[in-house]
């Protein structure tokens, strides 16, 4: 599984870093920085929840590289 941010949609609510600190931190303006696109199997469930919780649906969790 891979995480991706749609940077046009993202307006820095910051929920993702709150819900998924294992994979996401925020820059000084509150926009997400992904540690690495890959999501380890242990946190996939959290990643799914974080993606669903994003108010602008800017966080994407995808099965493949695309």
């Amino acid at each position: 599984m891979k995480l991706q941010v749609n940077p046009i949609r993202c307006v820095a609510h910051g929920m993702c870093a709150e819900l998924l600190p294992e994979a996401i931190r925020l820059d000084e303006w509150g926009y997400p920085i992904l540690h690495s696109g890959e999501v380890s199997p242990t946190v996939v469930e959290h990643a799914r929840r974080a993606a669903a919780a994003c108010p602008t649906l800017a966080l994407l969790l995808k099965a493949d590289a695309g």
Partner: protein
Amino acid sequence: MATTAVDLLPRLLLGVGERDMVALAEHHEVHGPPPDLRGWRPEQLVDEIAAAGLRGHGGAAFPVATKMRAVAQRRGSAIVVANGSEGEPASKKDRVLLRELPHLVLDGVAVAARAVGAKEAIIALEGDDDRSVRSLELALSERRRARLPGDPRIELFFVAPRYLAGQETALVNAINGGSGLPTFAPPRPFERGVRRRPTLVQNVETLAHVALVARYGADWFRELGTDRDPGSALVTLSGAVAAPGVYEIEHGMPLADLLELAELEDELAAVLIGGYFGTWVAAPDVPDVRLSGESLAQAGATLGAGVIVALGASACPVAETSRIAGWFADQGAGQCGPCVNGLDAIAYTVAQVAGGTGSRTAGDDLNRWLTELPGRGACQHPDGAVRFISSSLRTFATEFRDHARHGQCDRCRQPPTLPVPVPPAAPRGWR
């Protein structure tokens, strides 16, 4: 495929004279009559272009045949977009082609259309470039009168003279009646582009090369250049040279030879390769660099869209960098937070350092932003900006340290070697 007498340089610029444009009759005198494309199966054309090893000349150097195959394999009738909106302030080569050699570009459009099965094509160019518009309109009417077989239906599309206007997804978005800003891919233009159809976007110089490959063949094309970068390229040379302008070079030409041809006017400090989003080569390294992908990669550079700028020792690299950093921030689409904030902060901090008023953390701040920003925009604008600024900080570390301590230098007031256009007065709505 018949090979005629055209074999060495110039290739593209052959026949360019004092007059404004090479008319259809002259064009056919130079290159012979156009090949009848109906005699070619589309796959044959793509295979020939693949064999030629032609890569795109708009900046990314992507293999042309690969892009054509991706479009040709999609369902639905394809469309070709010739991208002539070269928003880079220091680039002139696409303008030269459109103004002087519109028929060569249009021949390439016809070949590309045949190769991907398109019956329609769009030429995108900057709307304020009257001479290019006139040349193309004249060329199109000549072709209609001559009833050239194989020409697709061609429309002109005028874009705003702005760097991002030529970005592939931004261009497709504009043609579709949208904002003209980059979009978040997928879908990519080859999947669903103009009018939701598979769309082949190629730079106008690339299409001019395509026209010649269809006429003279892949083997002829490979008689110049290197294995990875066969053929020739147009470069726009400016800066501290006596003869700035558009040159056609063989890929692999030593950078020093090009500078010698144009005659340096100042002691050389560094050469910018690949335009404002490119990389500096410091003067001591110039003798090792050849203008091919392989050699430039060793210097951490690419030829990009062919912009080369010689920076003289009497110019101030810190002032130049600061001006360009401001331009980067100004030219963003304003859509993605990391790019808006990052480029703004970088431009502000570089300006402070240049004036000697930077904070103690300025260096660390810059390094952090330059590391965090790449890959976090919808398009490559922030990535290119970071490449240039990082290269400047590395190449001119001494000068930056000097400015951080002492502020402006005597050379800061020199007229810019890297000019930036005066920001357009109003159209805020465009952001």
